[in-house]
C-alpha cells in the first residue's frame, strides 16, 4: 500500500489542469463557479473541447476513442476538472447509451451512434422512469408492438433530464406482457424527431425546467433500433448500473463546493467577525471537510481495489455518502448566506443578465441549489433503495 501519488500521476494531474484552464472557456467556468445555469451550448462547447483532446469518452474501449487510464487517473481527471469549475459531463450518451451499444449493439448501431456521441454532435436522454413506478423500474408499462419492421410505441416516460435538448432517447419498453415483469422488456433507441413524441416540461421546486415528461403516441421506430435481443432489455439496463462508477461519489464537485462555502463564510460578517471565525459555524464546515476527506479515500479504495466494474454494495455506499455530503454542502451554503438568500432571482441565474443582483452575487444560487439538490438522493436509485441493495449483498 502506497497512498501517495506517483510522479506520473502528478504529471497527469498537471496536464488535466492545464487542459481545463486553457481549453474550456473562462466564461463557462465562471458560470459554474458562480452557480449559474448552463445552456445547451455551454455543455456542447465543453464536450467538443474534450473530444478534440481525445478525452470525451475516457471509459470506452481504446479502439473506439476511450483512454487507457488507471482508476486513479480517472479519479484525478474528475477531480481536476471539478476543481477548475469545468461543467459536469452529461452522462446520457457517453456513459449510458454508449456502453450498452458497445456491449450489446450491432456493428451498424455502433457505426451510426458512437461517433456523434463521442464528438458531441448528438445529445441523448434516458427513457427509463415512468409515472407511478418510482424506484420500481421493472413495473414499466410503455408498450412496443411489432408492426412489420417497426415497433409502434405508446406510453409515457417521466423525469427525463434535459429531454428538451435531446436528439435521441434510449428507452426501456414492454414488448411482452405475458411473462414476468423483468422478462418482457426491450431496449430501444428512438429519434426524438419521430412524429408522435411530445416533450412537456416538469418544473422543479427551484422553479427550473430541467426534467420532462415524454409522451409516445403511435410512435413508429424501426426494428433495427432495438439493441440486442427482444425482451432482454432488463439485462442490458442492469449492465448499465454496474458500469463506470468512478465519478459516483462526486468528490471533485464537493471539493469545489467546499471551496465556495469557505469563500462565502469568509465574506459574510457575523457578530463583528467573518462567519468562518464563528466557532460553531466553523465546526460545521470542519466536520464536513472531514467527511469529505474520508469519502475521497473510500472512493480511491473502491475504484483502485477493483480495476473494473465496482461491486454493487460499494457503489451504493459511495452514492449514499456522496449525496449526503453534496446536500450538506448546499445546506451550509444556504445557512452561510443567511437572509440574503431570500430573494428569488431566476433571471440572475440565467445567461443574459447584466443588472446588479439583489444582495451579494454568491447568494443568488444558494436557495435554488439547495432545493434542486434534494433530487440527488432520489434519482439513480434512491438512497433507501441503495441501502436495501447493500443489505442484501451484506446478509447474503
Amino acid at each position, binding site marked *: 500500500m502506497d497512498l501517495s501519488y506517483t510522479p506520473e500521476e502528478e504529471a497527469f494531474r498537471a496536464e488535466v489542469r492545464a487542459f481545463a484552464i486553457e481549453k474550456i472557456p473562462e466564461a463557462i467556468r465562471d458560470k459554474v463557479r458562480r452557480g449559474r445555469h448552463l445552456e445547451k451550448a455551454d455543455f456542447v462547447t465543453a464536450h467538443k473541447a474534450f473530444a478534440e483532446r481525445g478525452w470525451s469518452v475516457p471509459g470506452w474501449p481504446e479502439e473506439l476513442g476511450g483512454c487507457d487510464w488507471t482508476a486513479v487517473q480517472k479519479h484525478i481527471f474528475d477531480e481536476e476538472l471539478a476543481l477548475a469549475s469545468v461543467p459536469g459531463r452529461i452522462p446520457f450518451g457517453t456513459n449510458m447509451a454508449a456502453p450498452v451499444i458497445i456491449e450489446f449493439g450491432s456493428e451498424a448501431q455502433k457505426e451510426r451512434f458512437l461517433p456523434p456521441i463521442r464528438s458531441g454532435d448528438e445529445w441523448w436522454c434516458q427513457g427509463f*422512469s415512468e409515472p*407511478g*413506478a*418510482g*424506484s*420500481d423500474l421493472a*413495473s414499466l408499462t410503455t408498450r412496443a408492438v411489432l408492426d412489420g419492421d417497426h415497433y409502434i410505441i405508446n406510453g409515457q416516460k*417521466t*423525469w427525463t433530464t434535459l429531454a428538451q435538448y435531446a436528439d435521441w432517447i434510449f428507452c426501456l419498453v414492454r414488448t411482452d406482457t405475458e411473462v414476468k415483469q423483468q422478462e418482457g422488456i426491450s431496449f430501444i433507441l428512438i429519434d426524438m424527431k419521430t412524429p408522435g413524441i411530445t416533450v412537456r416540461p*416538469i*418544473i*422543479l*421546486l*427551484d*422553479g427550473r425546467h430541467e426534467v420532462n415528461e415524454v409522451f409516445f403516441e403511435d410512435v413508429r421506430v424501426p426494428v433495427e433500433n432495438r439493441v440486442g435481443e427482444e425482451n432482454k432489455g432488463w439485462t442490458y439496463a442492469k449492465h448499465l448500473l454496474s458500469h463506470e462508477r468512478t465519478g459516483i461519489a462526486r468528490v471533485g464537485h464537493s471539493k469545489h463546493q467546499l471551496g465556495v462555502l469557505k469563500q462565502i463564510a469568509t465574506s*459574510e*460578517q*457575523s*457578530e463583528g467577525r467573518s*462567519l468562518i471565525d464563528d466557532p*460553531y*459555524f466553523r465546526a460545521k464546515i470542519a466536520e464536513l471537510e472531514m467527511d469529505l476527506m474520508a469519502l475521497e479515500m473510500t472512493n480511491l479504495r473502491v475504484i483502485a481495489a477493483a480495476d473494473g466494474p465496482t461491486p454493487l454494495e460499494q457503489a451504493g455506499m459511495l452514492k449514499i455518502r456522496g449525496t449526503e455530503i453534496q446536500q450538506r454542502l448546499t*445546506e451550509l451554503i*444556504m*445557512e452561510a448566506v*443567511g*437572509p*440574503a*438568500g*431570500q*430573494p*428569488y*432571482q*431566476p433571471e440572475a441565474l440565467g445567461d443574459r443578465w447584466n443588472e446588479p443582483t*439583489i*444582495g451579494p452575487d454568491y447568494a443568488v444560487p444558494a*436557495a*435554488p441549489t*439547495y*432545493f434542486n439538490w*434534494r*433530487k440527488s*438522493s*432520489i*434519482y439513480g436509485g*434512491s*438512497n*433507501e433503495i441503495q*441501502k436495501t441493495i447493500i443489505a442484501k449483498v451484506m446478509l447474503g
Partner: protein
Amino acid sequence: MDLSLSDEQRLLVETVERFVADRYSGTDHSDLTKDAPFRREDWVSLAELGLMGLLRDEDMGGFGGGPIELALVAESLGRGPVPLPYWSSVVLAGALVDGQGMGAAMLEGELLVAPALLEPGARYDLGSVSTTVEEQRISGAKTVVPLAEEADCFVVSALEAGELGLYLVGRNAEGVSVRSYQTQDGVRTGEVVLEKALIESRIASGEEALHRIETGADLARIALASEAVGCMAALSGLTEEYLSTRKQFGRPLAGFQVLQHRMVEMRMAVEETRSIVLVAAREAAGSGRTEQARAVSAAKTKAGRNGRHVAEEAVQMHGGMGMTMEYPAGRYMRRLMMIETTLGDADYHAGRFSRLMAVPAA
C-alpha cells in the same frame, strides 16, 4: 394549568382554518414561475376576521389575545401556507407602533405598515443599524422588507445623533425607493433605499425603541415558529397520505418499515416543535425578559432544525413527486426555509439560548 382549548380559542382556530381553506387550498400562489401579486383583499379579509387586532386589548377594539392565541393563529396560517407576512405587518408592526394612534386604520386593514429594520450585511443583527436621521430626513438601506412595495408606510430603525430610534416613513415620500421581488416562497418583498426621505414622526427612541424592537421581534418569532409547526404538520400529513396510497413493488409504500419509522420521527418532530412553541408562548405572556428571550430562542431553534428535517424527509419520501413545483410539498419546504432565515436562524438562536442559559455559579 389547563391544556385544552377554550371555546373562544377553538372558534379562533376554526375561523382561521376556514379562511385558509377558502382562499389558499389548492391554489398555486407559490408557483415561483408565476409572479405572485399581493392581493389586498386577502389582507382586508384577515382584518374582517379580526386578526389584525389579535394581540390588542378588547377595549382598544382588539381580540384581547396573547402569545398563545398568536401561536394558534400562526399555525393555522402555516398550514396554507399563506403568503401574507402576518408576523411582520401585524405582529411586529403592531408592537413597534403601539400607542401611536394608528390602531384603528391597521385594524381595518386600511393602513398597511411594513417594519424595515434589517440592513444589508447585518445578517440577523437588528441592532446593527447605520441608517441615520438628520434634520427630519432619513438615509440608509433596509433589506428583505416584506410588502415593501405594497405598504403604506414603513417603521424604520435609525440612529439620530448616535441614539437608536424608530421612525415612521411614508412609502411614497420623496427619497424612498423600493426594489420589489418575491422571496423563494412567493412572498412579495423588497429592498428599501432611503435618500434624505422626510420622516412622518418619531415613534420611540433609546431604551424604548430597543425594547419595542426586542419584544416585537420575539413575538414575531413565536408567530414564525408556530407557522413552521403548521407547515410541518401539513407536510407530515401529506407524506402519510402519499405513502398510504402510493404503491411500489406491489404494496403501499407505507408498508415499508423504514418509511414507517421515519414517518413516526416526522410526527414526533412536529409535536416537539408545537410543544416548545407553547413554552415560548407561556413565557412571553409572563416571565422576565431573560426567560422570554430564552424560550423564544428555543422555539425558533427547534422550528429551524425540525423544520428542515421534516421538509427534507417529506420531499425524500415523496420521491420525484416531492421535487416538483406543482405538488404542494415543495411550497411548505420553501416557506420553512424562508422562516428559518427570518429574524435569526437555528444557529443564531441556539447561540442566544446558550448565552442566556442558567448555569451554576463556578
